[in-house]
């Protein structure tokens, strides 16, 4: 065998003790990303997340389409949270173009966004359940998610990728009898949600696997710039809906759910508690919503933004989600920058997994509420 290597090429030195494992991108437990994990026996020495496998250039694509044509492709990164990913875009474009939104449309947007948040959290909870080996927790949330998908379908006409929010309001009014249907299904869902407590959250098997693993302290959570449920599970009371209320969130009655432990259990429990708050918001919004009125401000065809830039953010299912749009007197935006919660939470993976057992990797990784497609944009 020839041992002489061409000049400039070196072989990687393999350690006897440390082994490198690639989890993903084809591994079912990682999503569309790769975790390069170095293990010493059963313990993780270091972990290097490697995102970017589903980068689609949404930001560049947005520069070639006008403000309305951007709607369908901007919701593709998170198709089952599509109302929330379009929400800040609509708020930002409304600021750019100087459009007033009718009062009823604001309430409808809040309802749509909260329904969609529940859909997202249930989907995530199902994945979290199945990766911890709890297959009942896969079946139940996926089944109950149908209640919300049904409501969103009646509202917007599509099960996922609703393309429902537009700059200036929403695309169509609520169908007849929507209020009763929504109240009935949300009431039933709250009853169902309480059953999750016994089978999943108070289950000793789950508690033993998640309590005390992947602890993120309060100071670390702030220092690393995490957001959403990860931040709130570490004891920081921050929710964009409370701190910078948009649309009608300041009139509505809800609380921020904060836990102090900062471990995987707390991170998985915060979104669960938030679903109760979402149901509360939906019921409150249905009560306070004006019963009739316009839902959409008519736009000029091909509206132009001035020489201006604007940044708006909302609280999505995965944390704060912001859009920075720069326009230069043309029908297309000059630059669109999307700041997503998933990508901001990605940075804690090396800190959380160091020193953990390899078997705890899915429990810690999925508790971050991470969505690879959104992070890559």
């Amino acid at each position, binding site marked *: 065998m020839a041992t002489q290597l061409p000049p400039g090429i070196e072989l990687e030195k393999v350690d006897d003790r440390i082994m490198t494992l690639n989890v993903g991108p084809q591994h079912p437990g990682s999503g569309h990303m790769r975790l390069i994990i170095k293990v010493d026996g059963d313990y993780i020495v270091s972990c290097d997340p490697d995102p970017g496998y589903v980068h689609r250039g949404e930001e560049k694509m947005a520069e070639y*389409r006008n403000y309305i044509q951007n709607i369908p*492709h901007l919701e593709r990164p998170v198709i089952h949270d599509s109302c929330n990913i379009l929400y800040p875009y609509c708020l930002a474009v409304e600021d750019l173009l100087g459009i007033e939104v009718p009062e009823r449309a604001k309430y409808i947007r809040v309802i749509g966004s909260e329904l969609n948040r529940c859909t997202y959290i249930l989907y995530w909870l199902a994945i979290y359940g199945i990766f911890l080996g709890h297959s009942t927790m896969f079946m139940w949330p996926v089944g109950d998610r149908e*209640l919300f998908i049904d409501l969103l379908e009646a509202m917007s*006409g599509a099960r996922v990728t609703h*393309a429902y929010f537009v700059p200036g309001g929403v*695309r169509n*009014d609520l169908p007849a009898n929507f209020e009763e249907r929504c109240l009935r299904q949300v009431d039933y869902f709250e009853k169902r949600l309480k059953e999750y407590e016994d*089978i999943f959250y108070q289950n000793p098997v789950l508690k033993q696997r998640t309590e005390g693993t992947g602890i993120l302290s309060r100071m670390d959570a702030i220092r690393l710039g995490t957001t959403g449920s990860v931040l709130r599970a570490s004891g920081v009371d921050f929710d964009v809906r409370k701190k910078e209320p948009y649309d009608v969130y300041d009139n509505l009655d809800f609380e921020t759910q904060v836990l102090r432990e900062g471990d995987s259990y707390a991170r998985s429990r915060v979104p669960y508690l938030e679903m109760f708050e979402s149901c509360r918001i939906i019921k409150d919004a249905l009560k306070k919503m004006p019963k009739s009125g316009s*839902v959409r401000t008519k736009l000029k065809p091909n509206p132009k933004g001035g020489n201006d830039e604007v940044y708006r953010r909302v609280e999505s299912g995965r944390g704060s989600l912001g859009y920075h749009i720069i326009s230069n007197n043309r029908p297309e935006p000059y630059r669109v920058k999307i700041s997503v919660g998933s990508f901001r939470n990605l940075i804690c993976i090396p800190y959380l997994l160091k020193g953990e057992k390899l078997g705890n990797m899915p429990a810690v990784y999925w508790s971050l509420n991470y969505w690879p497609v959104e992070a890559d944009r």
Partner: protein
Amino acid sequence: MSTAGGIIRALNSGVKHLAVKRFTLRYPEQKLKFVGDGFQFDPQTGVGIAGLKGRHILFHDKCTGCQLCSVACEGIAEAIGMVKVKETWKHNKKAIMPQIDYGKCVFCGLCVDACPFYALYMTNDYELSSFTKSALIYTPSQLAVKPNISQDVEIKIGKRGATHG
């Protein structure tokens, strides 16, 4: 709570579900009921009418061949192309009408928002699968057909849980 007690409570909560009705929709036999006749749009008020965004329906007596639906689709899916039709209409001098490729369409419904003549709506028909790619391209005459569909099941909530009828 002790570990054994917790496991028994978890099991008990699962066992209770033996008495709960089946939630699954038995799809080919049952079909979900939707609100309205599909997504429609009123260009005068600028607001749509709620409904499912399914296959389109084209009204030949209203379409003027203005190409606005095709222009709207240009930056989205590029599914709509304008083709010549053999019919002669007074309001459609060029005799062109949209042809939609459902292999590309994303069902966002922005073409319906773009139509100023009430000529293009969407319907409740969502079963569009075919064996060839070319069969997914719907010509203006295929789009004019009103779909014949029966959809009757909706979510019912009773004492023994939610079910699909």
